[in-house]
């Protein structure tokens, strides 16, 4: 490796290639932006802008996969056995469209009721939590990695606990309700992690390999290993050896 100049070629060259990650990243970055700007009026506008933008992205993704093909996006160019892959197929894109369209439709009507029901000093934090919840829901659908589903599940549920507790301004029983939900939700999510561990054990030396775009298949053993051509040498030589991977198919992505 010392004598080979490691030239990294990017497979994602245009903004359209980044759509799967933009779908999740736009609302995710909107949440801290809302908090740091700290303006009540701007909070709703930014939240609506981010939601509408992710709605547009989900429409573009739907158009891209409506023929039955899929869009795979490897985070940072790391192939699935080592890195996280976002994989959008027709089923995923439909659910993404569903979530983002509901978010976009609901948010204009939420403006007056949030004004009425939430204390005015909490408005920015409310919208930030709302954006995080929305991010978690989108991410759960978009990702192709089973453990990443758990991470997004926790992102959405932690922000939902806060959203439930927001009702304390009107009725203090919201606090105990949020606490009960936290206990139940955490136990449920932990059982999800145990299930992932059991699945992983069933096929011990195998790292996540996405086979058919189904999340659970991300942990199947004899699947398809997809990697960029600039990494194939590294993956073949070292990663396969490190994890003792034996994929049935080895697909090497070619690009111009």
């Amino acid at each position, binding site marked *: 490796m010392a004598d080979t100049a490691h030239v990294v070629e990017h497979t994602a060259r245009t903004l359209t290639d980044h759509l799967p990650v933009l779908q999740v990243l736009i609302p995710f970055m909107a949440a801290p932006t809302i908090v740091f700007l700290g303006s009540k009026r701007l909070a709703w506008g930014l939240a609506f802008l981010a939601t509408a933008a992710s709605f547009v992205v989900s429409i573009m993704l739907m158009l891209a996969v409506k023929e039955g093909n899929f869009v795979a996006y490897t985070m940072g160019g790391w192939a699935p056995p080592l890195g996280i892959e976002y994989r959008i197929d027709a089923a995923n894109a439909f659910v993404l469209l569903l979530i983002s369209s509901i978010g976009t439709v609901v948010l204009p009507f939420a403006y007056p009721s949030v004004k009425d029901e939430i204390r005015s000093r909490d408005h920015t934090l409310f919208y930030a939590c709302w954006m995080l919840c929305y991010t978690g829901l989108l991410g759960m659908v978009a990702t192709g990695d089973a453990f990443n589903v758990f991470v997004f599940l926790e992102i959405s549920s932690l922000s939902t606990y806060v959203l439930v507790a927001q009702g304390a301004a009107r009725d203090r029983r919201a*606090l105990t309700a949020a606490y009960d939900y936290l206990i139940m939700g955490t136990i449920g999510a932990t059982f999800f992690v145990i299930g992932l*561990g059991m699945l992983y054990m069933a096929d011990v030396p195998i790292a996540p390999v996405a086979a058919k775009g189904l999340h659970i298949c991300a942990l199947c053993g004899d699947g398809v290993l997809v990697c960029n051509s600039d990494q194939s040498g590294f993956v073949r030589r070292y990663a396969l050896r490190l994890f003792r991977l034996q994929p049935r198919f080895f697909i090497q992505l070619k690009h111009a």
Partner: protein
Amino acid sequence: MSELLDLEFLAGHAHYLLFIILMMTGLFIVVDKTNLVKKIVGLNIFQVSVFMFYVSIGKVTGGTAPIFPMDSKFHVDKDALEGIVYSNPLPHVLILTAIVVGIATTSLGLALIVRIRESFDTIDEEDLLSIELEMTYEDNRKYGDSMGGLS
């Protein structure tokens, strides 16, 4: 006795037994204790049992830390590579994320307990339930007629 109880099998699967005992201890604390802070402690024990389960399945007998024998100039020592056995780092990396999530959950739960203490003046679940029952009766007395005459 030795036919009934396969000691060698039990010793080989001791980490599963420990995982199950720890997990059930945590779950029992969550269900049984009425103090909200103790419930959070039980939840933490429950989560830590899963972390230990993950860490134990990644261990390979005789395996070392999965660090590639490579110097600072990316030169791989071919001799050192032969016959080396690594533990599987992937479960360990995954559980690092779960630990962070667990800390976030704990802090949110404790913050909620502070708020509950502020508005109810108690963190005992039995007291909270009786206060909430009283509030529900109050609601029924006030609005019961308009909701169908529950009062």
